């Protein structure tokens, strides 16, 4: 069972699996365990997944989270894939899901998720992190808390430091 890190750095185990996009012409097969499917496919077959709390979605970094506008809270789990850790699009996707679309449930970072990016991810609204398998989850708490404060507003706080200073 894969290890999942929570926003406070504790380690839990769950059995969500990521279902890859099926090849052209193939249909999507749901496994016998909680599954994350491509967000656009979930949307296309939405009535089919009604009431399925064991189905969530994932976005790849080039996809637009806006497609879920208005329906985002019907989902209990959304994941955003980092194909390479240096691909920073996932940070914008996360903030848009949280701040623009008002997503309130679990948001997990998947893919090339390393330790030194965890605090950035958390500030952008992620609350679950599936570390790349070779990384040591025991170091996550430290890496999630390198900084005790940030200058700017993000998903974690909408009050930038300059507003706290001025008052």
């Amino acid at each position: 069972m894969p290890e999942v890190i929570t926003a406070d750095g504790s380690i839990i185990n769950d059995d969500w699996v990521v279902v890859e996009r099926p090849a052209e012409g193939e249909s999507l097969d749901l496994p016998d365990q909680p599954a994350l499917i491509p967000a656009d496919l979930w949307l296309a077959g939405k009535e089919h997944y009604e009431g399925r709390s064991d189905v969530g979605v994932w976005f790849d970094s080039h996809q637009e989270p806006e497609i879920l506008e208005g329906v985002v809270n019907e989902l209990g789990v959304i994941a955003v894939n980092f194909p390479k850790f240096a691909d920073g699009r996932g940070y914008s996707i996360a903030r848009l899901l949280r701040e623009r679309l008002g997503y309130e449930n679990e948001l997990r970072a998947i893919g090339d998720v390393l330790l030194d990016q965890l605090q950035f991810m958390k500030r952008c609204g992620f609350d679950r992190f599936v570390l790349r398998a070779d990384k040591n989850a025991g170091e996550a708490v430290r890496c999630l808390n390198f900084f005790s404060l940030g200058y700017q507003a993000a998903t974690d706080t909408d009050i930038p430091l300059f507003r706290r200073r001025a008052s």
Partner: protein
Amino acid sequence: MYVYDKHDRQITAERVEQFRDQTRRALAGDLAEDEFLPLRLQNGLYVQRLAPMLRIAVPYGMLRSNQLRRLARITRDYDKGYAHFTTRQNVQLNWPAVADVPDILAELAEVEMHANQTSGNCIRNTTTDQFSGVQADEIADPRPYCEIIRQWSTFHPEFAFLPRKFKVAVNASEHSDRAAIQVHDIGLQLVRNGRGELGFRVHVGGGLGRTPMVGPVIREYLPEKDLLTYLEAVLRVYNRYGRRDNKFKARIKILVKALTPDGFAEKVEAEWAHIKDSPTQLTDEAIAKFQTYFTEPAYEEVPDAADRLATQRFENRAFDQWIANNVDTHKKPGYAIVTLTMKKTGTPPGDVSDRQLEQIADLADEYSFGEARVTHQQNAVLADVRQDRLYELWQLIRPMGFATANLNKLTDVICCPGGDYCSLANAKSIPVAEAIQRKFEDLDYLYDIGDLDLNISGCMNACGHHHVGNIGVLGVDKKGQEFYQISLGGSSHHDAAIGKILGPSFARDDMPEVIKSIIDVYVDNRTREEAFLDTYHRIGIDPFKERVYA
């Protein structure tokens, strides 16, 4: 004077410990080289041809004397006793050991300095005019706005992994642009609208490098309070849609070009509409608070020393030339802005020894309220010198080599470190600069030629800003041989333009003579009022081609 508050000190201290932790893991093999790479780059640490290179941020070019002395000490303790002023107002160390960098950062943090985001695919340090706050013609002091941008962009969680590096520059002068804003990813010109309110004209998508471009205006007027929300919208559009498949097409200029400036502006406006009224919108109190970080020194009420200066200038021709070239008008009567020229022939442009750093610190303490500044032209500035002490200062700095009266002249060359130091370079740049400086040693001849930007880059990454030199020189590699391509007509000022390539490139030994021929064409064709660029615009590139390739 620019100082930190307790929050800045805390964040800087935490950064040092974070980088210590990252370096430890990298040296222990827990962080792969490609994983450590962006982390160290965002801390200014490159691995170069001969050794690592550490780029230290100097926000707005401002250095207090204690910071200069600390830099001097660091160059002695961790390096080879010299540093390098860059064209973006930073300071570089050329020979630090990777394992020492956390200690260097800790020493810098003690004097409120850091290397945050001086490299890497993130928002780099914001730059501005080296004469900010002291020049007579600025619309408002740009530094509080730069500091607002610096704080917003420092460790911004959404924009730490952009498609490519991202540089912002701010200009406040009505008549000049020493910050070259139109060749930055974002260039902000402070303006007042019809009602006299402060705001910015926003240029996006300028840049040098492989695809040089002058940044188009995407918003004519942005109210000052909307500065950060608008920047956030620009960055978000870039982060989402900028190309990531090809490093050479990843800068924002390529996206702006692909969408057209209007199309890009539309996307930004649509994004901005969502976040415009968020708490990131600035408040009057916040702007006022940032202004308090840049206090005026305790100027004395001194009379304008015009008469006395006039006599001194009349009696001493060398002093007169120095005043005419290296001293600028100050907003405060009785004061002057002095540029210490660091381009002594035989020294790589921008290189400064530990001793020189300490000399500048001493001069700053004695003559300029303890502060000096680094310029884009790789010189240093004493921004607040009493006019009645100029003569004494000049006598003091002549033997130090800081008084060569060639500011903005042909021999005040902008030059990257080039193939002598940099692993990216195709060719050496420093020896070319030196050979040209030797060719044009006669000051009277230099003054006759007048103001002229000669910029030299050792490769197309354009750290020497060759595209925007009135005369630009680019080092190229031809079958393992170093050659130099010349462009004419570039400018980084209000009339920003990318220079046109003159023709086939030249061998290094021919360069001084080629530059001489170009100058001869100008001198032969100019009318009395014309500067080099004016003549070039009137007669075009052909007469230069004919002479040089004759």
